[in-house]
């Protein structure tokens, strides 16, 4: 067959010429048509531009958040300097501002929560990703874990206040520390429950992405199921699981309400993990509306700035790891 004829370009002269009889009505109709298509083109351009503006708004929003935080915390940065972060005393009445109690409280409660939650979220990830990916029981577990993330944090806080705090108080009586109930330990327990879903759901999808030839090769060498998980699945998904843990940590650091309700809200440096304390988020929630002096307010905002920067860095690292893993 002659392919060149088939692929040849149709030129203008090939088209049948249309004879236009230019009566006034046809001209008017044609003009209307042209005007309409021009209008459509204009709307299209406007629409495309609107889309770009919406994309820009996101960037402006984040930059605006950063700038607002920096500008509003300038008074405290200027007058207190870097030693603000390591200052051990927070006493707004005497104008002494040190963020160390809150930094310590945040780190203690978040990492303790992470430590408690990791075995559970890892177990959920392995169970759903490797042992039983399908069936009604894993479906139930999956939905239940998603539900944990859906319950509002203020309800966790209320439950913690009414149920968990008395239990912890009993426990503290038994081991012989001051039985206050509220404190870093209680808030860690609540946080641990709240952050399980984040690491679990990410870990599950990571574990499901392990190529089956790898696993089959290990089974072929005579490995048992656990040996496959320990020496193939977990090493392969190591970075992905780590990213999940990072995202959970980001959640734990920024969590406000549940922590505020059970941590006890004192500005003293916590002596042990059972002592009451304050996190960065909870101190902002508690004192923001009562901050009467400009430096006081801006010291609180500086805490917000630190919180913002830390969570942004943690989240970005986590996202980068996930992106690299999925590619």
């Amino acid at each position, binding site marked *: 067959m002659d392919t060149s004829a088939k692929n040849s370009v149709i030129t203008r002269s090939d088209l049948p010429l249309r004879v236009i009889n230019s009566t006034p009505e046809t001209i008017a109709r044609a003009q209307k048509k042209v005007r309409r298509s021009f209008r459509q083109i204009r709307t299209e351009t406007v629409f495309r531009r609107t889309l770009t503006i*919406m994309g820009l708004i996101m960037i402006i929003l984040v930059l605006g958040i950063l700038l607002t935080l920096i500008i509003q915390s300038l008074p405290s940065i200027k007058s207190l300097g870097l030693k603000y972060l390591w200052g051990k005393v927070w006493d707004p009445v005497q104008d002494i501002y040190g963020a160390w109690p809150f930094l310590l409280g945040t780190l203690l409660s978040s990492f303790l929560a992470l430590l408690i939650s990791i075995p559970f979220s890892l177990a959920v990830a392995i169970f759903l990703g490797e042992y039983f990916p399908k069936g009604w029981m894993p479906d139930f577990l999956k939905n239940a874990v998603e539900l944990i993330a859906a*319950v*509002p944090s203020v309800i966790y806080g209320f*439950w913690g206040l*009414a149920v968990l705090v008395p239990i912890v108080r009993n426990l503290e009586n038994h081991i012989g520390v001051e039985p206050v109930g509220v404190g870093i330990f209680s808030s860690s327990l609540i946080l641990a429950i709240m952050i399980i879903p984040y690491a679990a759901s990410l870990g599950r999808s990571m574990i499901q992405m392990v190529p089956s030839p790898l696993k089959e090769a290990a089974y072929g060498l005579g490995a048992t199921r656990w*040996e496959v998980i320990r020496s193939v699945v977990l090493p392969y998904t190591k970075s992905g699981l780590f990213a999940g843990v990072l995202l959970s940590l980001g959640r734990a650091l920024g969590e*406000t309400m549940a922590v505020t309700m059970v941590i006890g809200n004192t500005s003293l440096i916590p002596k042990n993990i059972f002592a009451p304390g304050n996190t960065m988020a909870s101190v902002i929630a508690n004192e923001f509306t009562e901050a009467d002096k400009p430096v006081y307010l801006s010291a609180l905002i500086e805490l917000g700035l630190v919180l913002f920067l830390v969570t942004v860095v943690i989240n970005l690292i986590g996202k980068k790891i996930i992106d690299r893993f999925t590619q």
Partner: protein
Amino acid sequence: MDGKNIKYRIGKSYVAQIVTTIFAFACVIPLLFILGFIIKAGITKINWHFLVSIPKPVGESGGGIVNALVGSILIIFCASLIAIPIGILAGIYLSENGKTRLAYWCRLCVDILQGVPSIVIGIIAYFWLVKPLGGFSALSGSVALAIMMLPIVIRSTEETLKLLPSSLQEAAFALGMPFHRVMFKVVVPVGISGILSGVMLAIARITGETAPLLFTAFGNPYLSFNITKPMQSLPHLIYDYATSPYDDWKNLAWGASVILLLWVLLLNIFTKLITRKWKVQL
């Protein structure tokens, strides 16, 4: 591994499986405890009177949460009004111009926004709206919540639209449809289920948010429909009354918790049904 008895290894494997299963299902126990306790404590407090009257002052029993219910609905409605159009348009932008440099930065910012602690959003809304407008208002709370909704709406819109076959769009373009009509008459209607489930998830998430409302909507013990004035909301009412020392107020908070919980659960179940019906992958 070598030299060890095969029975020992198989046994170890079984033990590991059992331990994993136990740990996995142990997560559900606190959830069941929480749900059970909240519902048991709160369900008896709910009656018609509870839903239609405002809280009583300290010392008087009874009272209801109508101000918080109305406030929550109004604040969330305004937040959705702001966030849904912007979110969907930005999502369309990201799925259509996925590879430009602006899209890269935009996506990065959406990721950042998703991780920003809610209390920080509250501070931002305070300085952007409460201070310039000269007072706490429900509107500023709505803006704060809208900022929290945006990343979820954008992400779900983008992911949904990316999954649609490009032949769909190309067919519409070939018919001579302009870009905006292709988007609104073809692409968005086809992907509406994914977008809708993203919106529902976003609403479910902000329904329970308290932290951004603390210094924006501020709370109000009376019924108010004015969005330029302080307004109560369900999570805020729970926080206020749960931390108060009065039993009457705590009872109100338990009842409000049940309502909030049911609200959030229903939204989540609806989202599940939508995703299942239209087989959306989120």
